[in-house]
């Protein structure tokens, strides 16, 4: 007989082997292919930015929990790690290091810890950090190194604009889409990731691979990514059908500007997305619409980050109004005689 006491606790007495930690590390695994592509395209810069973002996010989480809030330190749960990676993925690979650190502080300190930590934040922390940097340092945040050049050094020289910024500027200066078609990369280059842009938004292929992995591992469901991309495609397609010279076609919208990164990794953030499938669909469609509207009518060429943050704010409302259907609600006894 064992001497250890018998435990009495309420049922259930078994538990699924899925833990939040495992979910978090699945996300990290899913992001690896995209990271490798960015290493190939931007070289050492991508590595440094990502490393700095991860380290500073975990560092701020640690310091805030240990010394400011004096609570348990939970840096091992993987959530700060993911915030770091996702923040880096939304930054140019030649961003000054101190800006990355500021972005991390905003992400962890303002967007996460001040709301109460993991699970209590309303907005996606990485996106808040990114948007903060974008509005504070617009120049540095919207200049990218040329893909596949200068991979061993960090460059100040700027040239590789994103397809969406090329289009935005071109249209402003009165060019038409057919004039611009030679300036933007081919669909294949965009799909593979050989284009200007932030570290993680490059390769649609790599992002899709990770996204499918997440869906297969049931970390995320298909509802948000599929509906969001569908919505971006349809809304941009409607503009394009009205005037193909003034509006970019849906392919360009889907393959650029972090649409895929946002759809699979940012909008699906468990904490800041709705909890029912119905809610997810509404949420994703709205993000798609807002993204396209910002891209076409807004001051910024890209709109995914803003669209997700805007919709994050509606999540509590969506959760309130799109509840699961209660079993047995609104059915009448139907005795067939």
């Amino acid at each position, binding site marked *: *007989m*064992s001497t*250890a*006491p*018998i*435990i*009495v*606790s*309420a*049922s*259930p*007495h*078994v*538990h*699924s082997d*899925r*833990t*939040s930690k*495992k*979910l978090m590390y699945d996300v990290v695994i899913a992001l690896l292919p995209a990271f490798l592509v960015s290493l190939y395209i931007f070289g050492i810069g991508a590595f440094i930015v990502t490393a700095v973002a991860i380290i500073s996010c975990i560092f701020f989480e640690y310091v805030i929990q240990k010394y400011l809030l004096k609570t348990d330190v*939970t840096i091992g*749960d993987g*959530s700060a790690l993911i915030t770091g990676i996702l923040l880096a993925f939304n930054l140019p690979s030649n961003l000054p290091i101190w800006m990355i650190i500021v972005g991390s502080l905003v992400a962890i300190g303002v967007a996460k810890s001040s709301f109460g*930590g*993991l*699970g*209590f934040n309303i907005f996606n922390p990485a996106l808040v950090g990114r948007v903060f940097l974008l509005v504070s340092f617009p120049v540095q945040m919207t200049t990218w190194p040329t893909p596949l050049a200068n991979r061993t050094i960090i460059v100040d020289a700027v040239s590789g604009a994103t397809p969406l910024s090329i289009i935005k500027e071109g249209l402003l200066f009165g060019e038409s889409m057919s004039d611009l078609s030679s300036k933007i990369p081919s669909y294949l280059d965009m799909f593979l990731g050989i284009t200007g842009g932030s570290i993680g938004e490059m390769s649609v292929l790599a992002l899709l691979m990770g996204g499918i992995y997440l869906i297969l591992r049931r970390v995320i469901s298909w509802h948000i990514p599929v509906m969001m991309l569908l919505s971006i495609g349809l809304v941009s397609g409607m503009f394009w059908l009205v005037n193909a010279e003034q509006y970019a076609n849906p392919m360009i919208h889907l393959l650029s500007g972090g649409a895929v990164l946002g759809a699979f990794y940012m909008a699906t953030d*468990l*904490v*800041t997305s*709705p*909890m*029912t*499938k119905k809610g997810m669909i509404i949420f994703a469609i709205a993000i798609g619409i807002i993204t396209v509207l910002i891209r076409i009518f807004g001051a910024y060429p890209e709109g995914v980050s803003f669209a997700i943050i805007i919709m994050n704010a509606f999540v509590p409302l969506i959760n309130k109004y799109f*509840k*699961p*259907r*209660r*079993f*047995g*609600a609104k*059915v*009448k*006894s*139907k*005795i*067939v*005689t």
Partner: protein
Amino acid sequence: MLKTFPKGGIHPKENKITSSKTIQKMSIPKVVYVPIAQHIGVPAEIVVDRKDKVEIGQVIAKSGGYVSSNIHSPVAGTVTKLDKIVDSSGYKKQCIVIRTDQKNESNFENPDYPLKTEIELSKAEILDRVLDFGIVGLGGATFPSHVKLNVKEDNHIEFLLINGVECEPYLTADHRLMLEKADEIIVGIQILMHALHIPKAIIGIENNKKDAIKLLKKASAKDENISVAALQVKYPQGGEKQLIKAILKREVPKNGLPMDVGVIVHNVGTIFAIYEAVQYHKPLIERVVTVTGKKLTNPSNFWVKIGTPIKDLVEEVGGLPEGTRKLVNGGPMMGKAIKNTDIPVTKGTSGILIIPEDEATRGEPKNCIRCGECVYVCPMGLEPHLLMNLTEKGLYERVTNEDIMTCIECGSCSYVCPSHRPLLDYIRFGKSIVKKLETAKN
């Protein structure tokens, strides 16, 4: 595609390690401890006294009301004590202690009745038999069966559903019973169909019991009104409402009963007990119990007399293994953890599960990451995370509006929560408070 209920549900590891073990007859216990509250409802009233001699099947406690049940002596012997002992609820409950008379032959006869197919009793006699012979739901809820069978004439019952789902991991009591008593179960079904004029009966069995499906299909072939529905393996399909939805696609209304959709559901074990009561005058004094656990030397299924201390059963399977940290009366999803093995087997004991060290402790609860898993798996369409939150804050009016009372306590939410949050613990607490508040109001 096999039938199943559409909303929610989980698929925990089945671990049906005793499914090939024939049900063995336990040796007669020296002493039995028979609690008077073995069923849902009012406890029975003791009608014997200390030093009384009792025979097998003699009524020792009489039904205490409409929702209550008679209790019979499982052995021939002498009442030694009327005592309070801790049962699986964790509370001390009134209980009749009987020392078995080792000389009384009736204790050792233990006959195996031959199959008897002719139904001789009338409708009223059958219903009286169920009432008098202490039949309660043996699926675990122990709801007195006569209450379920009390159907008003205008309440048209179209289907009798037989619950052979046994969706709890580990448990194989119903599975074995279906394999070993298939013909008797069919007769039991016919008895109920006859008594209540029910035109159709369907036996629901999950597809991890293919042998039972096959056997009961064969056994029911003679009666065109009885059929077998093979169901996809999904917990909690054995829940009454889920089973009705799975087989008939009918949804019992929120605060309604199966009768509201023309259905009565009974567990296979109950059906067998009714068969024995009606055909052979045998009250409910024994049942099938699965004694199981990964570390046991010889886990098995047993015919056990009600009132047998669990330690007798544990001895039968080779004693408690080294490092046992948890004992469960029932299955791992809905069973009750018990403190020691002195607790007796009651009418509701479908299994004893012995859990080793490494599976006995719960994970450390972490922050809710709002993943929504609890919402997806809830078979009742509730939002467990919200119910826990509101209960924690004491917002009982709001939890009532969020339908907390419709929770069937299947535990799927706690099972899946990746942050190991004790969702069901809070929901149970919330339910108990809401119930108290409602009684106070009335």
